[in-house]
Structures are given as C-alpha cells and as structure tokens.
C-alpha cells in the first residue's frame, strides 16, 4: 500500500443523487486522502426543497450549550448550527469569512476584523464590535472558561467602530485565526449571556446568530433546533424546518436505526461496518478525512521508555500497515507523525516508520535488553481499541517484547495520563485545523499537568514549536513542522498509528451536505428530498 501514490478518486454522484466526496464506495484507498480536496463538489441538479425534520444520531449526549464552557467534542456538532465563529473553515482547511467579513494583520501582534453588518442574535440584539469584545473578555475572565488557553495570546480587544474590532496580541500567534474557526471564535449574545447566567448551559435560546435557533433539550432523549428565518445570509439555506439530535450510544443500534429510516444522519460509522453499509442502497456513506491522529504516548519519565533505544525498538516492531488494514480495515492511513494528510502542513515525503525486526533487535540490544522486555499498555475498553491492542501485543511479541494490556474507562485513562501513571498509553486526538493544535501542547516542555503526557522535554523541539507560532508564512511553517515530524520519529514521545477517516452515513434523502475535515456537521445548506 503506497500512501504517496497519486490516485484519482472517482466521485460517485450516481448513487441516489448524493454527493460523494473524496472517497467512493468500495475499497477505501488511503491515497485518496491526498486527492485534490473539494473535487467533485457537484450537486445533483435539483432545486433544494424547504422544510422537514432532519433526525441526527450521535454517540453521546452534549454536555453544555455554552461554547465558552465546553470541553467536549460532541458539543461542537450542535454549536456549528446555532452559533457562528468569526471565521470559518473550508474543505481545504483554508480560512474564510464568517461573522467577520475580512481581516488584516498590520503587524504580527495585531489582528483587525471587519465585521458583517446587519447580523442579529436570535434574541434580536445586534451583533457588533462591542459584542465581540464582550465575548473575548468573557472567554478570558470567566472563571470556568475553558477557552482561556486558546485565547491566551490575545492581550486586549479594542472597539474601533461598530463594525471594526482590533485584537492586540501579547505575542505573534500564527495559529490564532484557525483557532477562531471553532468555539473560541463563536459569538454569544451578550444580553442573553448576562441575563441567563449559568442557565445558558442548558438553554441556548436567543444566544447565537446561526442558521438554526435552539428550541429545547431533553437530556438523554433529544435536542431540537429550528430554522432561523431571519438568518443574515440569504444565499442557500437554511432549508430544514427542524433538526432533532438524538444520542444513540450503541454503534450497531445507531446504524440499524439509520438503515430502518429512524434517523437520517449518523456522526460516525465504525470501520467494521463501512463495507457492509456501502453495499446497502438505503444508506449513503461519506468518508470524511479527519484531522485526527491516533497514537500511543510513551512515558519518558520512567523505565522502560526513559530509554530511547527501547522506544525505537517498539516503533520498529510495529507493523502499521497490518494494523491499518487488519484492525481499521483501511479506514485511515498509517501515520508518519501528528499532522494529518488533510493538513497543508502534512509532509508526504516523510514515510511512516516501517517494521524492521532486525533493527528492532539491534535497538533492544542497544537499550540493554537484548532478550526483550515487558511493559504495560493502557488503553480504552472499547472494541476497536482492544482489537488494536491485541494486534500490537502479537506484533511486539515477535520482537521478544511482552505487552500486558490494561483496559480502563476513559476517565481513568485521562487521569492515568495526566498523572503520568502509565508506560504506554493510548491517545486519540480529534485534531485541530492548525497543525499547532496537533503538536504544541503535546511536545512542548510544560510544567504541571498538560497533554504532554509523555513528559518529553527537548530544547530543539521547544524551539521549533515556538518558532512555528511566530512565523507567519505558511510555507515557512510547513518546513518547521516537517523538521518536527522527523525529530518526533527519532525521539518518539508517541508511536503514531493512524490518521483515521471518519465515515458518516446518511439516508439517501439527505442532500447538500458539504463535509469539512474537522468532522463537524454544518446543516445550513442541507435539505431533505
């Protein structure tokens, strides 16, 4: 399986008139991830129809409706339909105007946004520069704000005029714009936020500017949003009358609900189901490449992985191609590092670490364990992780390395990681649009608790990461990230496994869905046939 081989992906518009993006049905060629993105974004020539309720199945319940207090991925799925960020992502991870019409960077430490006029929050108040200032202040000062870290580089916010706002930065931050495409850039109505207080977490009525307005949320049952008829953007949707989100925790049941027509959309299809679903004419599958990297962090602060040679022995004993094919059924590509193929910073000239048992044995000897060694790997007790762990266990056994598998639930996994109470631990990062979000917090020397579970502290890596935030040019940054990837392959704070694809499945009635690699489902232009 050559990941670099160019492969023209057929864009299958045929099946029931649904847009197939990037990967077509049948064998999933990983190389297709690298195919020109946005290719085949051609709609079936039909006029969108207004009305209808879209029923969406998710794996878990949202946690809060307040984007500034949100710490879980699932919340964002709802937010992207009721709130809007200042800037938005396109399918190539480019930054496009959102609530901000345009922006300028007169110097590396200043960012000026020109805001869209005539936008109103759902509560009827105006969206303007004051509102932007209020939001950034809220993110920075609200004690429970989870956005603090993301907006840390913003020093002060100046209201230039009603539709112009200036962010003064403490330091250059090349990743800031990309960060503002998500929760940190989402604008909440100051009036609603102040009046409702903590209630905003469960009731987002009036709070957003987006194409849909919040209606009700019955925990564990459904969350309902309705079309915003006063939406500022008169081009395209929103078409749907309502969207009804439902948590369906069991993957199989969720898929069956889709096949039976009880739901129209599901957020994620398990790799084991992909082939079967693609053969089902009642379901349309869309392989959305993700920003994610799935890896295992190695604990540098204690034996055995404080020993670089032993880390390398593990990496060299792993057969990523076999894992990706056998466990993930090719729903993803072997990872060469933390940056996914969807990113502009992905360097396809760097191969992933290939299995080489002879070299692995040499490294074992170099690390003082010629006869092999034993360690414990901690992973989440979910079927595909268990399966992957079993395959890794068998692969490492061939190199004389004995793996004991410790299965934990995710709360335990996180505290084991934060407490550096592990030897090797599963880490599945959902990814961020800017490569900074997949690297800095994992590899930068950080005191205290951080996502740098491995405890790596390497001056060269630190310097590269700091520089990548200061340099503005994308080409320049890409070189820095390539350099970083090579060092990571040698130092191995993590062994990288896969950049997964996140297949989503739809009823054939669903039209007009435009996938963005951040995996968030924006339903503005979606309609039901």
């Amino acid at each position, binding site marked *: 399986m050559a990941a670099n081989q160019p492969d023209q992906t057929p864009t299958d518009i045929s099946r029931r008139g649904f847009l197939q993006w990037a990967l077509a049905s049948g064998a999933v060629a990983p190389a297709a991830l690298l195919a020109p993105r946005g290719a085949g974004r051609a709609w079936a020539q039909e006029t969108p129809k207004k009305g209808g309720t879209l029923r969406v199945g998710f794996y878990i319940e949202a946690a809060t409706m307040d984007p500034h207090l949100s710490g879980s991925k699932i919340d964002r799925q709802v937010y992207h339909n009721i709130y809007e960020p200042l800037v938005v992502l396109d399918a190539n991870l480019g930054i496009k105007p959102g609530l901000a019409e345009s922006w300028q960077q007169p110097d590396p430490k200043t960012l000026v946004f020109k805001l869209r006029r005539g936008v109103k929050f759902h509560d009827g108040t105006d969206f303007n520069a004051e509102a932007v200032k209020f939001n950034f202040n809220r993110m920075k000062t609200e004690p429970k704000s989870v956005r603090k870290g993301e907006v840390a580089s913003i020093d002060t916010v100046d209201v230039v005029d009603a539709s112009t706002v200036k962010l003064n930065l403490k330091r250059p931050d090349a990743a800031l714009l990309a960060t503002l495409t998500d929760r940190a850039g989402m604008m909440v109505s100051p009036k609603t936020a102040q009046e409702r207080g903590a209630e905003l977490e469960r009731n987002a009525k009036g709070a957003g500017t987006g194409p849909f307005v919040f209606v009700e949320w019955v925990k564990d049952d459904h969350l309902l949003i309705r079309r915003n008829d006063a939406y500022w953007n008169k081009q395209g949707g929103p078409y749907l009358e309502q969207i009804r989100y439902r948590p369906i925790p069991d993957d199989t049941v969720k898929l069956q609900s889709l096949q039976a027509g009880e739901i129209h959309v599901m957020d994620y299809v398990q790799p084991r189901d992909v082939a079967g679903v693609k053969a089902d004419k009642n379901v349309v599958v869309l392989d959305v490449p993700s920003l994610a990297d799935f890896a295992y962090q190695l604990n540098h602060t204690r034996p055995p992985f404080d020993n670089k040679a032993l880390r390398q022995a593990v990496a060299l004993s792993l057969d990523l191609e076999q894992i990706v094919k056998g466990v993930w059924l090719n729903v993803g590509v072997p990872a060469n590092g933390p940056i996914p193929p969807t990113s502009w910073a992905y360097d396809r000239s760097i191969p992933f670490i290939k299995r080489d048992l002879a070299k692995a044995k040499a490294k074992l000897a170099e690390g003082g364990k010629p006869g092999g060694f034993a360690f414990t790997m901690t992973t989440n*007790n979910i079927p595909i992780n268990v399966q992957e762990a079993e395959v890794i266990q068998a692969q490492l056994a061939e190199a004389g390395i004995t793996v004991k598998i410790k299965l934990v639930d995710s709360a335990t996994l996180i505290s084991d990681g934060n407490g550096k109470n592990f030897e090797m631990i599963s880490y599945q990062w959902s990814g961020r649009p800017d490569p900074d979000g997949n690297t800095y917090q994992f590899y930068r020397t950080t005191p205290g608790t951080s996502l740098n579970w491995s405890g790596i502290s390497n001056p060269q890596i630190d310097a590269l990461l700091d520089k990548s935030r200061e340099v503005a040019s994308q080409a320049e940054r890409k070189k820095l990230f390539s350099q970083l990837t090579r060092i990571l392959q040698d130092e191995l704070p993590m062994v990288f496994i896969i950049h997964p694809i996140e297949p989503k499945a739809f009823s054939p009635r669903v039209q007009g869905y435009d996938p963005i690699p951040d995996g968030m489902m924006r339903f503005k232009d979606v309609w039901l046939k």
Partner: protein
Amino acid sequence: MATILVAPAPSRSVRDRRWGTLRRAARARLAPFGAAVMLLAVAAAVLAPVVAPYDPLKQNLDNTLARPDRTHLMGTDNVGRDVLSRVIWGTRVSLVAGFGSVVIAVLVGGVLGLVAGYAGGGVDNLVMRLMDAVLSFPPLVLALALGAVLGAGLTGVVIALGVVYTPTFARLMRGQVLAITAREYVDAARALGVPGWRIAWTHVLPNATAPIVVQASLSVAFAILAEASLSFLGLGIQPPGASWGSMINAGRGYLQQAPWIVFGPGAALFVTVVGLNFVGDAIRDALDPRLRV
C-alpha cells in the same frame, strides 16, 4: 434475583436424607442433562490445552471473520483467531468467574449469616443492615464501580460479583441458623454443654448446606451472565484472554456480518446456564419434602 427457598425439616438422619436427595435428583429427567453439561464444561476447562484445535491466541489478519468450515468449526474472529479454541479456553475464565464469585459470596455471606444468626442482637443488626445496604444498591452499578476500583481483569470481576451476591447467602444462612437453633435437639445439645461452634458444625452447617447448594448453583448461572453484562459495560477480562461474555461483547458489532463469532460463545453460555438451572431445580425439587409425591 430472589429465589424463594423452603428450609427442609431435618427429620431423619442427615446421611439417609442425602442419599434420598441424590436419588430424587437423578430421577428428575432434566437433571442428567444438566449434570452432563456441567461435566462437559469442567472437562473442557481442564483439558483446554489438549482439546482445543488451535492456539486460542494465534492471530491471522489475512483470515478474519472466516465462516465456519472444516478447518475452523466455529469460524474465526476479528483478528483471525479460531473461535472454537477460544470458546474452549474461555470455559476456564467463565467458570472461574462464575464459581469464583459464588465461592466468595458463599464463604463471606455464609460466615456473616452464621455469625449474625448465632450472635443475634447488635451484631445481627449491624451485619444484616450492612447486607441490606449492599442489596439496595443497583447490582450492576455496584459491580461496575467495584470493578473500576479494583481494576479491570478477572480478579476484579470475581470480587465485584462476589460482593454483589454476598447478601443473598448471608440472609439464607442466617435464616437457616435461626430455624435450626430453635429446634429442640439443638436446645438439648446446648443444655448438655456442647459449645456453640460445635453445634454450628454438627447441626447447623449440614442442614444449611442443601439450600445453599441450590442457591449457589443458580447464582453461578447468574454470575456467568453478569460477567457478560460487565463486559458490555467495559469491565472485563484482560486481553488477549477471553471469557464467553467478553467474546460475545467483542463480537456483538459483527452480528450482521459474522454472527458465528457470537454464536459459538453464545451457545456455550446458553447451554451451561441452562444446565446449571436444571441441576439447581432438580436438587431443589428433590430436597423439598412437601413436593415428594
């Protein structure tokens, strides 16, 4: 789950009764089937290395989810391991989970019940309120939390389930103690100066054994099932080992494409649980004097 048990009246000598019991148990038609199943399961567990056709851990990623055929009688699982071999080896884990947890429950619950029933008063009150408290926890939640505290793995599961079943046996034992110590011959023994532990040993335990054996055989069946439920909730056996429950759980996502990876362990579990129930029922029918026709 509560099963109503009727204490047998210790009329004739214990030895006599035991023989009668066995004969009656054997007479019930379903009992031999149950006994045969249990023998088979135990044999499979003990002889696993000999009878399993393949290494249960040997993966073959080029032959995953293979249909049952002559080489793999129950097919292969999601990493290409032979399902039949894993079912045979899984017998060990499932039986250990089932019997292990019940043994813990019988020992701990039995002793607590004996002490409570015998001591009476404050001790009785304390022990029994404690048992009530355990009983009023939702059982799966209790097992789940205990398992999380103890860490996943067979030991955690066995202890967690053992705790869940303990109150059943404590209550049962206490009831037996109270019923038996009220009898005249025990009074007589006490009047003769026989020490308490001796009375417990010679009179209480032999009489309490039968109902406890009945309850235990049913509890083992429940425990084997409960282990599967815990697997579903993410508290299971450490891979690459497997119990029937964890195999069913790992395979449930493949129910449509490769049902055989669930059918193998599912059938083993089903037959064993049915067998245990038959055995339990037969012993109970045989023991209950009022049902002797």
